[in-house]
């Protein structure tokens, strides 16, 4: 009996250890690839120097304007780093959205956009672009982002309003999300079909999603919404675990499932809309990175959530770096690369699951 319990304990520790190891590995990968990402570009700055420059800057070092160090600092800090940080933040925020949606709606097909957020954001951005806002001016940029963000909140607001009249069950939320996103998307198609070919193309490109517009100005908003969303999900991973057992089990274990879902939806819509109104509709990360991580370390949200955050950040950043080096000096939008790189990996991991992957297996 004694040895049996010892074995069990050991096994459990091993089980937890593997999950923590995975999280740590992802974080190390992020740190290493981030520095590699900073070495890319016209001016040659070595891998080790990147760390030096970043640490010195954080330490408050100042350089004589125009000197070689000053240029290194300027280029890394003002040009290359914003993009890297944006990739990390966006990847993290979208994965956390995917995890929460999949668990709370109990549906492997759910992603941050299931409730129609992307269609709203898209509508906001498209209408701003058609009204003549462009990315060439600061005003235009803010016009597009603000419009996209505000319209992105409409679908979630509608669902929350609706849930006062109907129950907030997963089925209702999904179906209401479908209805709203189709309505918005029909407007999007309408605008795109009737607009000039040039506008259509710029809108199309916007939709794919890119990080090339990153600057420090955009980051505070994005970072705030992502931190709030992630903190909420990380603090309520136990509730998500209960919801995965099904509605009845969750309620009988003392969770107010409907209210939790509404709160979760409200917070996540703000964070998702806050991210994609800057970057465009980056697909794939939110849907797939939770699945990949779940296949590797299991579906316990207490570990899955941080692991998928780290993995999503790494995935998005690596995809962005590949997009920048593959057709130099031009670059490919990260949305395209993600699918190219991610889809085969995803297929491979699915096929490695011998017992068959149920999407929500414990």
């Amino acid at each position, binding site marked *: 009996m004694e040895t049996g319990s010892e074995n069990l304990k050991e096994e459990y520790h091993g089980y937890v250890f593997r999950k923590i190891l995975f999280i740590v590995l992802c974080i190390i990968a992020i740190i290493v690839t981030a520095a590699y990402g900073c070495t890319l570009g016209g001016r040659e700055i070595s891998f080790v120097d990147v760390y030096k420059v970043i640490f010195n800057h954080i330490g408050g070092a100042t350089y004589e304007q125009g000197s070689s160090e000053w240029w290194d600092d300027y280029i890394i800090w003002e040009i290359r780093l914003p993009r890297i940080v944006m990739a990390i933040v966006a990847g993290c925020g979208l994965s956390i959205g995917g995890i929460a949606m999949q668990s709370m709606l109990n549906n492997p097909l759910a992603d941050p956009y299931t409730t129609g957020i992307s269609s709203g954001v898209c509508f906001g951005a498209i209408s701003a672009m058609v009204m003549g806002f462009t990315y060439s001016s600061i005003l235009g940029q803010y016009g597009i982002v603000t419009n996209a963000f505000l319209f992105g909140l409409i679908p979630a607001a509608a669902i929350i309003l609706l849930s006062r009249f109907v*129950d907030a069950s997963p089925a209702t939320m999904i179906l209401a999300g479908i209805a709203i996103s189709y309505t918005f998307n029909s407007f999007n198609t309408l605008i795109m079909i009737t607009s000039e070919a040039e506008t259509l*193309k710029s809108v199309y490109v916007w939709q794919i999603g890119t990080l090339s517009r990153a600057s420090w100005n955009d980051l505070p908003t994005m970072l705030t919404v992502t931190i709030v969303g992630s903190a909420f999900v990380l603090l309520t991973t136990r509730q998500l675990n209960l919801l995965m057992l099904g509605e009845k089990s969750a309620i009988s274990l003392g969770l107010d499932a409907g209210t939790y879902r509404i709160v979760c939806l409200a917070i996540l819509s703000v964070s998702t809309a806050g991210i994609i109104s800057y970057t465009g509709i980056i697909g794939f990360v939110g849907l797939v990175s939770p699945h990949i991580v779940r296949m590797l370390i299991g579906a316990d949200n207490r570990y899955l959530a941080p692991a998928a955050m780290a993995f999503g950040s790494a995935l998005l950043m690596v995809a962005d770096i590949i997009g920048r080096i593959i057709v130099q000096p031009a670059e490919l939008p990260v949305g395209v690369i*993600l699918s190219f790189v991610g889809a085969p990996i995803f297929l491979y991991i699915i096929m490695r699951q011998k017992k068959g992957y*149920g999407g*929500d297996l414990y």
Partner: protein
Amino acid sequence: MSDANTDFKTGYMIYISKKVLFITLFCILAALSVGLALSFGKYPIGFLESYEIFFDHIRGRVPEGEIAVTKDMIIWELRAPRVLMGLIAGAGLAACGVTMQSVMRNPLADPYTTGVSSGASLGAIIYLILGISLVPTLIGQNAAIANAFLLSLIPAGLIILISRFMKTTPAMMILIGVSVMFLFSAITSLIMLVSHPDQVAEAYSWTAGTLGRATWSNIPISAGIVSACCAIMMVYSGKLNLLSSGDKCARSLGLNPDGTRVVLLVIVSFATASIVAFTGTIGFIGLVAPHMVRIFVGSDNRYLMPASMAFGAFMLTAADCLAREAGTAGLPVGVVTAMIGGPLFLYLLVRKGKRT
């Protein structure tokens, strides 16, 4: 005792007759929408007159007089192919939607969940922008259609291939479809990115989904494939009920869930591919028509299937009337269905409250 028995029987009869009533109602709506669609347009033709002209032509009566000839031409050559394509596509997509939602046990599933539409879009774009035809003998519209059809079968083919080597759960099938879809749309985006804005506009309008490309020469193909597939899906509708109650239930009731899923997947992909190749991606119908009908007739697939088919046909044909005449060049029909259907669907959801 016998009283309770008769009560039970009457209750059941009422329950069934309500469903049958709805099916009949939806069929009547579909039939009416045909007349509406035939008579609707810039050239005025009466509602009843349009049926008359249509059936006269089928019976082989030759129209007399200049006006009659013109009317016959407009009905038969211009409007009828579009209306028929609307009926076929609407019924076919709705039936595929019902099947997919039961097979995958997922309310988010639709005919395109396995990636059919991304394959079709890619196929069409390969021809429209790059000029590559997979069937070298074809050119023009037909080459785009053939490309779309062939590529749209790839995702489902892959799912079936994988399912031969390993156990595949519904979630896995969906995710395989999703990953192929992402891959295909990435290629599509890439092609669109590097091409000229005018070409992008052309390709975009191809993929947006319209009934405008329907002609008499392509109706027999899609009508044949879709009606054969629909017939099989009808036959399988009882088994679908078992599948949607879970794999364990299905197996204990004597059904092989894995085999049935694969068979149904093949059928759905063929039907959807033969619609999408001719029309482009018409969304909404396949996903929402089953949900709407489910609110009225419940989830028993034996009744849900025919009711959804009739309702889908009605919805698409009626919406196409507006799509055809709106603006100067018309709209994609998917836009109209979603614009009217989206709010309607929300309204139905709210009204039915907890019964969703």
